[in-house]
């Protein structure tokens, strides 16, 4: 049952990703992206990491993509405003050929990784275990990332802030 679900979710996310790249209108690309994200959240849930499942939906599907969709709608893009891409298929084939060595490496790495033989601890992927590891073993990188986010937040505010006199 879980194998079947895994293949289903995996194929949905793959098809969604391909459709997102091929979509002409940005709003459709965003909608396919949501499908990919929800399928990925399902795969997290299959892994038993319930917290990642919830966070994937709350942060990515719930906040980020809805902001993207909001901005796309705000711009009100008409079909005639879209860029003309006469050699789109050719570009996609070329870029796929360029990326394929890396994917080969990736597949090799994953297939050579030893399987997890020990059963996972009971609290794997729950809020408590993730929070404990973030605030004990990974405190320093965690705080650094939050500092980075703060800097980018202040930067975006300063960039968009317009002086009254100008």
């Amino acid at each position, binding site marked *: 049952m879980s194998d079947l679900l895994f293949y289903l979710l995996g194929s949905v996310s793959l098809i969604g990703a391909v459709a997102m790249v091929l979509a002409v209108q940005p709003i459709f690309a965003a909608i396919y992206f949501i499908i990919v994200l929800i399928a990925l959240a399902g795969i997290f849930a299959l892994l038993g990491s319930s917290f990642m499942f919830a966070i994937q939906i709350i942060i990515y599907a719930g906040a980020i993509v809805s902001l993207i969709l*909001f901005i796309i*709608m705000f711009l009100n893009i008409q079909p005639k405003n879209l860029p003309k891409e006469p050699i789109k298929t050719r570009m996609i084939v070329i870029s796929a050929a360029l990326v394929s060595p890396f994917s080969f490496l990736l597949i090799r790495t994953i297939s050579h990784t030893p399987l997890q033989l020990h059963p996972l601890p009971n609290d794997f992927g729950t809020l408590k275990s993730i929070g404990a590891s973030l605030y004990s073993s990974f405190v320093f990188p965690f705080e650094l990332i939050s500092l980075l986010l703060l800097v980018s937040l202040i930067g975006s505010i300063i960039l968009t802030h317009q002086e009254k006199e100008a």
Partner: protein
Amino acid sequence: MNSWMTVVPILIMVLLSVGIIPLLIWMERRIASMVQNRLGPNRCNIHGFRLGGIVQSIADVIKLLYKEDFYPRHIRNRFLFLIAPVIVFVASFLTFAVIPFADTVTIHGHRYAMQALPTTLGILWFLALTGLGIYGIIIAGWSSHNKFGILGALRASSQLISYEIAMGLSLVSMILTYDTIHLNDMVAYQSQTFFGFLPAWGILIQPLAALIFVITAFAETNRAPFDVAEGESEIVAGYHTEYSAMKFGLFFVGEYLAMTASAALIVTLFLGGYTLPWVSTEMMLSSPDLLIGGLILGQWALFVPLMLWIRKNNLRRGVVCNGRERERHVLLWLFGSILLISTALLGTMLAGVIDPLAITLLSAGVQVGTFILKLFAVIVFFIVVRWTFPRFRYDQIQYLGWYILLPLGLINIFITAFAVIL
């Protein structure tokens, strides 16, 4: 027994979400008419049975179902147009799945969680689904190809996104207080008392977080005074301008579902959930005599005023109508016999040997009843607020969200964190 205890919470969830919507429509219309000093719908009847006007909402539902279901010709993406109300409906329906309706029931050593989806996610599930519900509104507005639709969707989504932050912050302070994200554990925390006599309800421990959460819940459900998304004086009906028949009905039902789900969450987080104040589950299980006696008294306290009210108000002076007389008789007989039969049953239980299984089920039933009573109280509050406050201007809404609620939520988190550490 095993499968029954799993099915029962799902049934309660369906009843409390979709099942009570005709009742909610009736409450909304009758309370609106009370506020506006008129009668509201009270004429629709089946053989003289008006049930105070509830029959009217059944008629409304039948009308919505049988309306012609048409698509405007300019709709280019029929699939998106069709799926949008479904997203809104499903997202708000599933929110109910994690609300605990009673404490975990233990029968013959098995523990059954009384929530439709026994997940450990708790409040994160609620946040995730409110985030997904936005897509229904955005897609509806976009696929309508209509200025009013797009304006309504823009207003609704920007409002939802900005109020989600303040809501999340108030929830963070509640999670800090309760030290858990499980709704059931939160309710267990609230069954304690502090200062010796006050029940440790969220609204008494964290009044600021409760205020922020209630305001954001109004905004998240798109209800007045935050219903600029469908401000009819400005943008017709907002994102559902182009929708008709049951496609509109799904939006309509989805809005009520979101309201009941928010009310259920407010009850669970801030009003002690399914617990009676000062009465914990263990107390109910350990003293069956008091439980049954209290149940009998509570039943009389609920039913007798209701019957007196029906007796007095189901007839109107000067209106001659045989149907009303008959309805009053039948209703009084019905409620009276229910009251007497259940009192007799409980009395025989009290007199004879008390089965522990029956006590377990009875205490779960009492908790479900308490939850429903609190839920209705919050829903009445929602409705009264809708009909007494005028609609905010759009910039006022954004000002309130970003300049007042967000800093308040942050300050509240700091205060809570200090209090928790000390």
